């Protein structure tokens, strides 16, 4: 398994696309018995969920069901919350990334994240993208860095719009552009997994459509986990869907199956709009 991962990482960095039909099915991340509690309050109960590579996994569920908390376990962003305690195993590349010996900084460079609200650094567009490669020492020369920035912006579908004003501040872009900038920033550190926490909730329908197209494009190269409130969005972009309710994983499966033929009553109630 280890060799396969390394291979795929190399092919990725070389920038060649892979055959879409292969390598889809093995789980990129395997979560086993995850429990999360904030102080005395338990937020997630015993969730086990495999996440496949090169596809989009959508996490849906009503507010407060723990889907964002679960997402943040995958790059250990919950570490920054003092009272938060995570137990269980999250296996990636044969290692339990929840182990205290694992460096969360290294983990986060391999598991990128895009947040609900576009949050570019208060710096130039170029520096926004270049920051990650710089701190990880990915670029040796200025040319390398320029190339990396261009490639990331191209993959995020933003290059044509910003190539003439790379030095203007990142916050000068529109909301949708800012979110794509954040995606480009995440891509620039060459992650294998991208986590998206309601990436379109602050955007208008046109910008949302562009981001969704982009997600569809990105899934050829990355393992993507997206939290969304919009069931239409989950249906449009994801291949697999997991439904959370009150901190429990109610049901998971192929997106088509979840939306057309849910096994659980609660799932059906939720997707038909009876609660949530």
């Amino acid at each position: 398994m280890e060799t396969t991962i390394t291979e795929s990482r190399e092919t990725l960095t070389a920038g060649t696309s892979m055959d879409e039909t292969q390598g889809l099915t093995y789980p990129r991340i395997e979560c086993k018995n995850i429990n999360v509690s904030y102080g005395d309050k338990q937020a997630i109960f015993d969730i086990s969920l495999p996440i496949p590579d090169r596809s989009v996994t959508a996490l849906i569920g009503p507010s407060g069901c723990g889907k964002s908390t679960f997402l943040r376990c995958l790059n250990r962003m919950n570490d920054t919350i003092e009272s938060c305690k995570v137990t269980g195993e999250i296996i990636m590349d044969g290692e339990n990334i929840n182990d205290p010996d694992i460096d969360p900084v290294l983990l986060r460079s391999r598991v990128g994240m895009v947040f609900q609200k576009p949050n570019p650094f208060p710096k130039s567009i170029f520096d926004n993208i270049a920051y990650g490669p710089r701190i990880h020492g990915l670029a040796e020369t200025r040319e390398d860095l320029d190339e990396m920035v261009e490639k990331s912006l191209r993959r995020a579908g933003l290059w044509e719009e910003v190539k003439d004003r790379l030095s203007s501040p990142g916050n000068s872009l529109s909301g949708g552009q800012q979110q794509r900038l954040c995606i480009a920033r995440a891509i620039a550190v060459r992650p294998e997994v991208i986590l998206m926490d309601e990436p379109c909730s602050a955007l208008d329908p046109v910008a949302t459509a562009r981001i969704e197209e982009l997600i569809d494009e990105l899934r050829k190269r990355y393992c993507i986990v997206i939290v969304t409130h919009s069931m239409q969005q989950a249906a449009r972009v994801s291949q697999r869907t997991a439904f959370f309710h009150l901190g429990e994983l109610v049901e998971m499966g192929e997106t088509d199956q979840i939306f057309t033929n849910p096994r659980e009553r609660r799932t059906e109630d939720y997707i038909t709009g009876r609660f949530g």
Partner: protein
Amino acid sequence: MTDAAPAPFRNEKALKRLKKRRAADTRFRFYGMSAIAFALAALSLLIVSILSQAISAATYHVVRYDVVLDPAVIAPAGKDKPADVARNIDGFYNLLRSNLLQTFPDVQGNRLETRELGDLLTRLAVLPVAKSVAANPTQIGQEMTIKVPLNDDLDLYLKGAVSPEARLKLGTVEQGTETAPGRVTLSGPNAFKGLQSLISAQRAEVGDAVDARSILVTSGPATGRVVSMSANSLEMDLLTGSAADYQGARPLARVIALPEAQRNVSDDQIAWTLALKDMGRISRVPHFSLLTHTDSTYPELAGALAAIVGSLLTMLVTAFIAIPVGIFASVYLEEFAPRNRLTEIIEVNINNLAAVPSIVFGLLGAAVFLGFFGLPRSAPLVGGLVLALLTLPTIIIASRAALKSVPPSIRAAALGVGASKMQSVFHHVLPVAGPGIFTGAILGMARALGETAPLLLIGMVAFVADVPGGPTDESTALPVLVYSWATHAERAWEPMTAAVIVILLMFLITMNGIVVFLRRRFERRW
């Protein structure tokens, strides 16, 4: 449900409510505006009163002496090395004093008058002259023009600050005759009628106290004090000059409200000063020595240089300690420290420290830095340390507020691309919080610059005659200089004190200007 008719927009009750609400609005706006007006009025009153006092210290009077630098007086044999000349204050003083005595030969033989004439010149005022001659010894034996400040009381008299004084131009004097030694009678038809009516008007106002007032009649270099008068003739004691100076002139009469016995300046001194002025030997010049001289017991010689340098050195020490320590403490507390009981106690105590009266910090400084560590008294080093302790809480609180205002999404973004906690703080949070932190730091420094009480306790109130060369030299600071000058009894210190306050305010305004600039220049939006 349909019974209740929809309320019409214009019924009596609604209109009444609207009126009430509008009145409340107007009242509130009026309160706010009057509060602001009151604050502005208080501020402008303060500024106007300080400036109007200080403006009189912006210039002062100097007396010109054209003398020959007689080697026998200033560099007698055996004491003619430059170092000796520089120290020969008595020689230079005698040289200038004898020039005064030559100018007013009448005083010869009268010891009191001789002393009073000598008082026009302050002995120590010749020190800069002695130093400059010593530095350039070829001037010895040559003729030289020397300008030396006028005695502070006479300077104040010329500025009109000694006593209210009524002035009146008299009629033409046809004849001035010396009837007895020093006694002159002036005569002219109706020449003194105006003066008579002025005196009777004053008599109506203050009664017989007017008899104690000096009436000085001046024409050219001559001044006399009125003894008696009628409409056509006036008898007076001639203080300086001669009877001939009045012949055919229209003299100027001065009625000085404050009796001679209650003044620091005698009528004679006023007469001599007016004569020197008439000779063109007194000129009013900008008071640069306020910035270039150090402290002195004579107001006309005193300056704030030592205090300015002392304040700068103190601020330097404070800045070097308080700013880095304050920033690191606030970054640690805000970004890294775990939230537990201990950090809570620390937080509460930092807030309490900010409220501790500054004099307590002075006591602490005296006990710890002077008593325990044995650091030198009156030194900017100790002053800086004490003020650093004083400003630390202010800086920490302001910096933490600035750090708190950085949106957490920026921290999350940095962590999300794999930056470590340190990197996220130093690359992203600090640059955004920077202007706020520096605003807090400079405002804290501005507060420290104006602190007096703690410096008094560590001995920075000492009289310092030399510019401090380093942070361990004896020194004083601007607010302390204000304090010590304000406690002097002589009137001349009043405008000098106001002038130092203006210097201090300039420093504060400059610092606040830097704050505004930093905010405008570096404030970022997100």
